[in-house]
């Protein structure tokens, strides 16, 4: 649904702010809370200007306590508000893990719908910006395996705003991950006003026949570059941006995979237990007979994200993805 009129060039982080502003203007029950989201406008400026526009009752600087932020958001959500809680970095979501795992995600099912938790948890995630230790985690698979929460990751400004609005409109908890290394990496035309990008739908970024490359969030750029390189070598790539990690866009994946029979999955999270495993499992379920080569995963390693002197080695890059494309093609 779109009520948008014009468009405006925006970075991804500006699109997030614009999405928040759009919903806050329309709905008094939408509130923003978190550490430094108020006066400071967020450490990445994702809530810039909202404090001045909507006041401290709706753009709330909380004490430094993630369990407190999520726990009180649950209380707010069951009582008429739609909180959008910011976790300053994804790697600081862990103190709130209990509140998310045992409450935010379970209240609807425990009470057969008597209480519901329409809340959004926003968090910048991922490595590649030379951040200090533990500021670079990519642990989306902790949440895609958690019953009761949807997980969304935009890779560009348009999707960021549309998915964020859809997430705020969603009647259930949504984890909204923002690729911090693309917060300001480029600008894009973004519609003004309200529009949504549907949760649960991926996007085909490039049409191809030989190999399916599946990525999301901060890894889209790497995947795009590797795909371009492959195309130059005559390998035609079907490139999918997942956008939603739970529930996955099963049909889009199956359709592509059944066409190409060859798959490369890219994510920066560790290899074991990463979303790659789940996608392979899904392809096993839907497309076994179509597969012409083992699926390749290009991922982070089974190691903590190293300190930034080594983070470029940790992160999947164009070369590693391209090598994997070649490998599945040559199999």
């Amino acid at each position, binding site marked *: 649904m779109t009520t948008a009129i014009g468009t405006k060039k925006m970075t991804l982080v500006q699109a997030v702010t614009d999405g928040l502003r759009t919903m806050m203007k329309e709905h008094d029950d939408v*509130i923003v809370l978190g550490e430094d989201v108020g006066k400071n406008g967020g450490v990445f400026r994702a809530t810039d200007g909202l404090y001045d526009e909507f006041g401290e*009752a709706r753009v709330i600087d*909380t*004490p430094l*306590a993630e*369990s*407190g932020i*999520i*726990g*009180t*958001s*649950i*209380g*707010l*959500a*069951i*009582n*008429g*508000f739609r909180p959008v809680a910011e976790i300053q970095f994804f790697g600081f979501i862990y*103190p709130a893990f*209990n*509140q998310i795992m*045992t*409450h935010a995600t379970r*209240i*609807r*099912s*425990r*009470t*057969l*719908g*008597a*209480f*519901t938790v329409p809340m959004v948890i926003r968090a910048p995630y991922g490595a590649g910006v030379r951040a200090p230790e533990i500021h670079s985690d990519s642990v989306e698979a902790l949440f895609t395996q958690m*019953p*009761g929460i*949807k997980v969304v990751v935009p890779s560009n400004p348009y999707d960021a705003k549309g998915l964020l609005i859809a997430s705020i409109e969603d*009647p*259930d908890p949504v984890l909204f991950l923002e690729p911090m290394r693309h917060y300001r990496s480029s600008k894009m035309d973004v519609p003004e006003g309200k529009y949504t990008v549907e949760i*649960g739908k991926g996007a085909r970024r490039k049409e191809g026949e030989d190999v399916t490359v599946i990525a999301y969030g901060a890894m889209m750029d790497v995947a795009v570059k590797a795909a371009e390189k492959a195309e130059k070598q005559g390998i035609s790539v079907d490139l999918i941006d997942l956008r939603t990690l*739970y*529930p996955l866009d*099963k049909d889009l994946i199956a359709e592509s995979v059944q066409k190409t029979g060859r798959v490369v999955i890219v994510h920066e999270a560790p290899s074991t237990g990463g979303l790659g495993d789940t996608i392979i499992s899904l392809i096993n379920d839907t497309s076994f007979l179509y597969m012409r080569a083992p699926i390749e995963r290009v991922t982070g390693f089974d190691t903590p994200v190293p300190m930034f002197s080594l983070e470029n080695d940790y992160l999947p890059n164009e070369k590693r993805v391209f090598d994997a494309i070649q490998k599945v093609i040559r199999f």
Partner: protein
Amino acid sequence: MEERFPMLQIVNGNGEVVDEAYRSELTEELTKELYTKMLRIRLFDRKGVNLQRQGRIGTYVPFEGQEASQVGSAMAMGEGDWMFPTYRDHGATLTFGHSLKTMFLYWKGRHEGCLPPEGKKIFPPAVPIASQLLHATGAAWAEKMKGTDRASIVYFGDGATSEGDFHEGLNFASVFNVPVIFFNQNNGFAISVPMHKQMKAKTIAQKALGYDIEGIRIDGNDAFAVYFHTKKAVERARNGGGPTLIEAVTWRYGAHTTSDDPSKYRDQSETEIRRKTTDPVLRLERFMKNENMWDEKWAKQLEEELTAEIEEAVNEMENEPDANINDMFDYVFESNPWPIEEQKEAFMAGRGE
């Protein structure tokens, strides 16, 4: 700190008024209401233990001994207020309006047991210890933002004060001046762990000092003390005075749960002494006798009526149709995403449905 936070009492174990300021408010009507509600939940509780022994419900969590804390505090709350209980506070939720049948269903492992009656803001019991303090704070904060005068009450035990969420709850509530009552039932034990291993502090009320909020310590077996002091805190909350931490000092007579064996960690003779000296129900009986309010016939009839009401609820519980398998699948989200829908279909097909 014990001097700073004396244990407030209105009627002592012998049923004697010790705080004369309240004498005129200790009416027969109030007394009988408290007594009735306490007896009702005591009978419920004993039934719960028995049903578990007979295998008719699952693990049950008894609260016998804590009736004054639960009834007095629940009665202090008003229509439209919120209640956030633990697994041990069905005495409070029953007093606040939960139905007997629903509570039995909860202990029978039924999701229906988590559903509040229409219009009642009773949250399902918190199982992860102390997590509910934040929910109560959030819900009360929402009331404040909406501009109502409604408040939350949240129950938790002495053990719960050790969890980080206890601290975060009190801190958020104090910073945002939220109308929430943190109602602690200090029953001396967290399963087997006695209070002195749980904290060095000798009172729980003193923990309010770290947050610059009101903290009081009351005799949790004195229904009057609980009722009037909680009511005062609720009034303050309604009038913008912010949160209060209430420590109600009490004792559970029985096991932690029906799976627990208290003889492993404490001398149960303590309980026997307490039954005779500080029991909340007996205390009201003594008070009524002292005040010439006691009527043996009334008491007998009351017990019969309450017993019948509870038996009726047991009946209802046992005649409830079996749990519906759809309930497992269909309430994770507002509508089932494909993985759940597919899993449900496969499951139904596997059962031949």
